[in-house]
């Protein structure tokens, strides 16, 4: 069954085989994403600790993670880390992928949180003080409820980006749709149909997600009183 031409017969033969990996691809995406959402908070929190040296270290660790290809990070966690004496730990492919991609994307997500927090008007902090909120309640009741909703569209975009990066995990043996397609290709010496299927699956899942996020964005923009904020910024000035 080998030919360089498109065959529908092979297409329908490959389809169920490739689809076996769909659960893994989606599951890994969701797990990585949740991990990144949580770990993003860790970065945001660490960067707010008012110690110059510490702040500098955290900033550079984030910069390092972001400037290194996720594929290299995956390989490092999966192949190199176990070889480090003392702290080396051998992790399975799935766990390695969650750690690698999760941490990589958490640095971006941490930045999104930060931009959300910085967009909250300074007057809100002053009002929280005037009403004597505790630091914890100030964050829980005043800052985060205003900082997070506007970041939802951006966070959604990162979900799609991450979904598209998850096939990297096939290189360390996570049996997602890409690995299944490659396996099918190797076994049958036919890559055209299975890889086309992979592309179609990504399109079928990414596109509706993107439309959904666009809708969310419009909803978020109308929810907040942008006009008042702009006016406030124009007038500005204390005293």
């Amino acid at each position, binding site marked *: 069954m080998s030919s360089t031409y498109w065959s529908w017969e092979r297409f329908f033969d490959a389809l169920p085989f490739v689809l076996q990996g769909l659960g893994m691809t989606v599951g890994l995406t969701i797990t990585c994403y949740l991990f990144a959402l949580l770990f993003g908070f860790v970065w945001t929190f660490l960067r707010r600790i008012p110690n110059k040296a510490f702040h500098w270290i955290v900033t550079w660790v984030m910069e390092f993670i972001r400037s290194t290809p996720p594929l290299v990070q995956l390989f490092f966690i999966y192949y190199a880390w176990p070889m480090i004496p003392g702290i080396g730990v051998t992790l399975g492919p799935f766990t390695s992928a969650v750690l690698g991609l999760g941490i990589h994307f958490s640095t971006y997500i941490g930045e999104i949180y930060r931009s959300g927090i910085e967009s909250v*008007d300074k*007057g*809100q902090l*002053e*009002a929280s*003080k*005037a*009403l*004597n*909120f*505790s*630091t914890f*309640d100030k964050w829980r*009741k*005043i800052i985060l*409820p*205003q900082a997070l*909703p506007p970041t939802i569209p951006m966070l959604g975009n990162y979900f799609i980006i991450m979904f598209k990066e998850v096939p990297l995990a096939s290189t360390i043996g996570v049996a997602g749709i890409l690995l299944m397609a490659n396996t099918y290709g190797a076994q049958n010496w036919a890559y055209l149909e299975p890889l086309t299927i992979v592309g179609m699956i990504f399109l079928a899942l990414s596109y509706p997600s993107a439309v959904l996020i666009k809708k969310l964005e419009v909803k978020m923009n109308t929810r*907040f*009183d942008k006009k*008042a904020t702009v006016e*406030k910024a124009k*007038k500005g000035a*204390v*005293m």
Partner: protein
Amino acid sequence: MTEPIVQYRDVHKSFGDVKVLKGINLDIHPAEKIAVIGPSGSGKTTIIRMLMTLEEPTSGDIIVDGTNLWKMEKSGKMVRASEKHLREVRGDIGMVFQHFNLFPHMTILDNCMAAPIHVKKENKEEVRERAVQMLERVGLGDKFDSYPSQLSGGQKQRVAMARALVMRPKIMLFDEVTSALDPELVGEVLEVIRDIAKNDDMAMVLVTHEMDFALDIADKVLFLDEGVITEQGTASEVIEHSTNERLQTFLHRFRKV
């Protein structure tokens, strides 16, 4: 007269190289209504912002009900106050801001209820009753479920006052509360302040450009000029009998417009 509830003792404040306040001495007595007037940039707002703990004095002491606000004792030495100390001392102080600073993600009623419930841990039903009462008092009895973005500036500022009042402060600070309003909305806000000044027994400090209004309701008027209180006394003492030239020029400029 009773013991002062707030005392400023030789308070200085600089922003970088700019000296904004150069030695403020001031007593605020319970129930006293004080108006702070003076040219822009004279440091009026900074005086009350330091009391609300929004700015830290560069030097000097602010004593609230016998406790030093910005300093605390730690193993025999006076050190910079911790956030915990500030929270304890500022509990009886409330503030209304120039730009309202309502919480945009909460309804009007929730704006008024949030602090008493979460900060003072008061009973929710009692707080609701008081919040409803206050909102009715400021003329917004029909807006409980509206969000701040749906209100006019004057209405927002009245909500901000209700929100501060529900906390039952002993001292209320008003920071140019009508400056950000369209002229036709100023009156409704001043009416509420007049009502509070007449019927509530809390101390009030108003930083304002509404000269006639301030002189009308204030027990004591302070004229602040280049970081120093150069005149203080009753409205008539300050306005009619002062020979301070800069004060006269300042008032003259206001009276003309």
